[in-house]
């Protein structure tokens, strides 16, 4: 069943249709919440609460527009509010997954080590950025959202996302150079 149809049925009170929508989007919603809170239980709570709020706000969802960024905007707000309420700073708690042997078999061990170091370096430099910079980069590159989706999720114009992304990458570059110099 089409997502729009599910959303319409959910708006008419069909909670089973909404459950299907939740199941489709819960992974990306949880990841978005985790990127904001940096805490798995908090991210789970935020995700659950955001879905309930989304259900009640379905009247405001414009048919024809994409459901995912609309939902992620609610998730992001909920996660931010919870993190602020808990009085915690946003920290980057992501880790790089262990290298898959079958994938790395194609490259030399030296190249694999260099690539892994580069990834750790990038992640560490990312942790030094402000929350705003980190979020725009994370949503765009880690969640794989388009510029338009990132804009809807963060509640700003597409042009704003472009300029924010550009500035964030420039700052990331500086942070990496600083780390390299050190």
């Amino acid at each position: 069943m089409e997502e729009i149809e599910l959303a319409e049925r959910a708006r008419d009170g069909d909670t089973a249709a909404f459950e299907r929508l939740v199941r489709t989007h819960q992974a990306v919603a949880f990841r978005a919440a985790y990127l904001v809170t940096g805490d798995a239980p908090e991210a789970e709570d935020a995700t659950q609460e955001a879905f309930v709020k989304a259900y009640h706000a379905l009247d405001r969802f414009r048919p024809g527009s994409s459901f995912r960024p609309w939902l992620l905007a609610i998730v992001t707000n909920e996660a931010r509010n919870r993190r602020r309420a808990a009085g915690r700073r946003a920290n980057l708690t992501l880790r790089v997954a262990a290298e898959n042997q079958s994938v790395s078999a194609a490259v030399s061990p030296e190249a694999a080590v260099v690539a892994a170091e580069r990834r750790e370096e990038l992640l560490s430099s990312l942790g030094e950025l402000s929350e705003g910079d980190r979020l725009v980069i994370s949503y765009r590159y880690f969640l794989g959202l388009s510029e338009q989706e990132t804009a809807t999720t963060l509640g700003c114009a597409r042009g704003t996302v472009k300029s924010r992304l550009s500035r964030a990458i420039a700052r990331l570059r500086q942070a990496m150079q600083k780390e390299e110099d050190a």
Partner: protein
Amino acid sequence: MPDDRRFSREEIESGLNDLGERLEYPPTPDVARTVRLRLDEERGRHARRAWRWPPFLAPRWTAVAAALVLISVFALSPTLRSTLSNFIAPGDQTSSEVGGSAARPESGGTQDRYKQDAGVASQAAGASAGSAGEGATGCPHPALEAKPARGAAGTKFRLSGRAFSSGCRKNTPARGVRIYFLQSGKTWKLETLDADRGLTFETRLIVPAGAKPGPATVRATTRYGEAVEDHFLVLR
């Protein structure tokens, strides 16, 4: 390789894309079922709230009106008074005279009947108290109690919970019950715990250092989204 080339925008973007594919997130919890349960429960609550008696037909006013009518009929109808008196004390013909029963002390039989009724009532109350942890749907209905229910920031208090089951499964203790302290829009997460086999828990908690003097709420939220609260007063 010179720095400016190594850290070109394109290379950073490519590095970020590569990183995005290799990041490790905590396992995604399945919230779909929980969200649906919460929504269904909310809808049920709203449906119950939506149906209201018209003010003049509300059950308590109807009961009051019925009682008034009965009293009036009884007071105005000597025949009815006589019949009722005969029914209550059939052996005592003198008391069944007109107006006799109203001021007449209750006979032993009547008192016994009252005692019996009281006994039934107290049994019902006892039964009701025994099943206080069970809602109308037959699902355990959790309860929460903070003791003492007042204390200054930084002091300890005891929190006990009962009837914390996993959803509607009466024999399965709830796991991952989250305890929050709420005050004036602020929320502190105090603990996450599991209920024991008796569906109860007891824990010692500390009033958050940032809590201000005044009323607050202690809330326990189950994984099924059920929230139970108890009041707390933060002292100076």
